[in-house]
């Protein structure tokens, strides 16, 4: 089983259509990876499915970087 970090990065790469090596931990979805607002919503949906969880809208809005996504999953999935 790959780490949470790897799984998050893989999903970000798939959803945003970028190479996995471009998905740096500090990268911002919109500014660095070219996501638009709809992409970010879909990304959260994909994370919800991968980790079998529900991320409330208020929390989802705060997840704007790869690191924030990893942190959220780690904190809420332990």
């Amino acid at each position, binding site marked *: 089983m790959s780490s949470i970090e790897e799984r998050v990065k893989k999903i970000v790469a798939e959803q945003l259509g970028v190479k996995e090596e471009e998905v740096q931990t500090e990268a911002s979805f919109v500014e660095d990876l070219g996501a*638009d607002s*709809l992409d970010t*919503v*879909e990304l959260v*949906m994909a994370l919800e499915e991968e980790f079998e969880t529900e991320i409330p809208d208020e929390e989802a809005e705060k997840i704007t970087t790869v690191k924030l996504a990893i942190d959220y999953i780690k904190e809420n999935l332990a």
Partner: protein
Amino acid sequence: MSEEKTVALVTGASRGIGRAIAERLADDGYRVVGTATTESGAAAITEYLQAGGFDGCGMTLDVADQAAVEDVVKGISAQFGAPLVLVNNAGITRDNILMRMKPEEWQAVIDTNLSAVYRASKACLRGMTKARWGRIVNITSVVGAMGNAGQSNYAASKAGVEGFSRALARELGSRAITVNCVAPGFIDTDMTRALNEDQREAMLGQIPLARLGEASEIAALVGFLCGSHAGYITGETIHINGGMNMA
């Protein structure tokens, strides 16, 4: 039955235009879930779909209830698959001249005709964006464009849905999801059958084609908009009113 049918959700499908749309879509090969506010309405939907030999069923839903809308869409997704076609047809009237219109009459119409379109569309978007395909057709009214004395609430709700649809069409275009409105004029349904002879004559006098429309004629247009040939039409309101209002 193993082939995957696209699931279509039609609100307000127990009678009138909604029923005709549900039957049209079922005949076009969709698995149709029609909703009605009452148990008996939902049962009637199941009955006519089964009688037609179609796949699908009726469900109870009050589109003014946020949680109920979310639950029904989740239930359909689990049972049949996510609805990729949504026809927002459920609507009510509470006619009154504005100087007599009670806040409840205003609110009920806005809630069921306009806010419900927000609710149902939002609930279906997860499935549609994931599929990278979807069709939303909102049933509005010629009254949204022309206005009608005694229907300020209804006219506002229908014009509101048309603006909503244009905005949503822009949001979702990149995902091949189209959002359109069909605006019927006077159609032969229970709603128009309730009019008296004088009202009926006055109404027909405004219609170049000199007859009421058939619910099946509205349904055929909705069927076209849901189909693959209509993939380049979005954000549009298509009028179907016998010529009583030509834009």
